[in-house]
């Protein structure tokens, strides 16, 4: 198992480096940051001096080499827009997104498993039809629009919830709701689908013939076997959860990594873009490895043999 973790980490490391190279050169294409960071009436000479001081005048490969050297020494550069170490700023925002994502994903998983199982227990019943349609709607809804409608109803209309920001527990409700919606919708479909085929399988028939209780059949026999594909999909959804976080954070003014990244892109803050991308990528790769390990825990047929 240790060998497996090592191998996967090596693969992920290559992927992270590839991503950093991509982001480094792409962000350099966006234009000269000197125009954004110096006052509008600054002279050409001042801009030159600024670029020179920041090293933006050097050839790209030199800049990249310097960047890699810095990363090796855990120096990720300075976030120009905030005049602070880029990694410090990114690490401050990261937990805010992580909290949102973990809560949203847990809620989505729990609700999806319960709703999906109950829907699969009686296919084509009224509950099943409502659950299927509602989950499809959840999976199809544009999250930014749901966020706006939620603000419209609960903040503008009813005045119950704050429109944006952080602080009170009330601030958490809408971002989490919006972020939960799509994974919930997609997961209900997966749970329902796998549960329907699990409930039609021979071992469930056997259990039924033995007189095992219905709830026990659903949650003990069928659900356990249906969990694997659910976890696969949930893992794939984690990356797209970051997509949702970008939208949700920018609408609700949530000080997370998604909003930080948009700010950094718009302000041509190269060091900050790289730091946020690096953190997001590492987080996702760690998650992928964790999911693989969880797989082995859940499914005894999977073993990490060194091939």
């Amino acid at each position, binding site marked *: 198992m240790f060998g497996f973790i090592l191998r996967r980490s090596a693969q992920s490391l*290559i*992927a992270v480096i590839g991503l950093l190279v991509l982001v480094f050169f792409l962000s350099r294409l966006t234009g000269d940051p000197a125009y954004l960071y110096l006052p509008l009436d600054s002279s050409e000479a001042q801009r030159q001096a600024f670029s020179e001081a920041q090293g933006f005048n050097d050839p790209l490969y030199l800049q990249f080499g310097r960047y890699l050297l810095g990363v090796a020494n855990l120096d990720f550069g300075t976030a120009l827009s905030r005049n602070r170490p880029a990694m410090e700023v990114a690490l401050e925002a990261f937990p805010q997104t992580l909290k949102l994502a973990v809560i949203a994903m847990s809620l989505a998983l729990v609700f999806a498993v319960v709703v999906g199982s109950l829907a699969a227990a009686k296919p*084509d019943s009224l509950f099943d039809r409502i659950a299927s349609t509602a989950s499809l709607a959840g999976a199809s*809804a544009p999250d930014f629009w749901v966020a706006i409608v939620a603000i419209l109803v609960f903040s503008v209309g009813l005045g119950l919830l704050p429109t944006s920001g952080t602080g009170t527990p009330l601030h958490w409700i809408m971002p989490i709701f919006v972020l939960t919606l799509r994974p919930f919708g997609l997961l209900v479909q997966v749970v329902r689908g796998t549960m329907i085929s699990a409930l039609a399988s021979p071992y469930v028939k056997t259990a039924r013939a033995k007189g095992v209780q219905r709830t026990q059949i659903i949650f003990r026999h069928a659900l356990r076997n249906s969990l694997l594909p659910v976890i696969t999909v949930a893992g794939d959804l984690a990356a797209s959860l970051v997509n949702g976080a970008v939208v949700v954070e920018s609408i609700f003014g949530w000080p997370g990594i998604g909003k930080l990244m948009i700010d950094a892109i718009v302000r041509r803050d190269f060091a900050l873009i790289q730091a946020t991308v690096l953190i997001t990528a590492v987080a996702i790769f760690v998650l992928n490895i964790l999911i693989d390990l969880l797989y082995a825990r859940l499914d005894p047929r999977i073993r990490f043999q060194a091939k």
Partner: protein
Amino acid sequence: MTIPADTKQKPTARFQVLRLIARNKLALAAVIFLTLVVLCAIFGPWLMGNLVDKPNFRARNMAPFSLAQGWAYVLGADTLGRSLLARLIVGAQNTLGIALFAVFFSMLIGGFLGLIAGYSRGALSNVILRVADIVMSFPSLLLALIVLFSLGPSVSNLVIVLAVTRIPIYLRTTRAEVLEVRERMFVSAAMALGAGHMRIVFRHIAPIVLPTLVTIGAIDFATVVLAESSLSFLGLGIQAPEFTWGAMVATGRGYLANAWWIAFWPGLAILLTTLSLNILSNWWRTYADPQQRWRIELARSKKGIPEKRT
């Protein structure tokens, strides 16, 4: 299987699909709505052309459900007094068009790379798969934001970015299928007859893989519509004066307190379109699955009494 039998069967099979869809109210509604949207996308600009940009200052921020300014303003008007209904109808073209091109290109490129990766099992195949892994594992929206900001937002860049983020899906599916198909008898036979690699890949393997790709493309279409809307909403997608439904929601965002309809209708249009697409693809999945098909064939035909199967 002889050819005459095949041609004889096809029309009835197609007719049966339509008949079964018509029996499912939800699927029928989805088909009708999508047909409407497609018609809007094709004929909308031609029908509504001048209404879209025409400011009507008497209708500024006009509330919906009033016919005071004529039928075009039944869904209200935006801050410049432009008819929202007309903009919705015309916006369908860009919204669907961009997604269509993106799906087409990602299918084309992903399919092509997948054929190579599946057929040639060499170092090249490994490189392709690794790159696909990188693209897959990183949040597509962030990648798209970075690329769009560097290359500048435009319709063609939007299509490129959306296509690139979806390529790995087609690539992996194609590769998996190719790995299986290349072991089949007819491929060995073609090889034995001396067919070149190109001929084997494009004449013998590709046609087998294509239907799967088209199915995935249809399912993926809704995701691409959503992705484009998100990008346009964040301001890095389509740029004025061009607009999509996502961009329309972004415009309305600033006027939530006094004119909710500007942001509400285009979002609803996106929701209904993606929902219809998902309903249909779900329906199709059930229909195509021999173990599940009876659910559709039995459903709603007078309290579970099965219809005679043909």
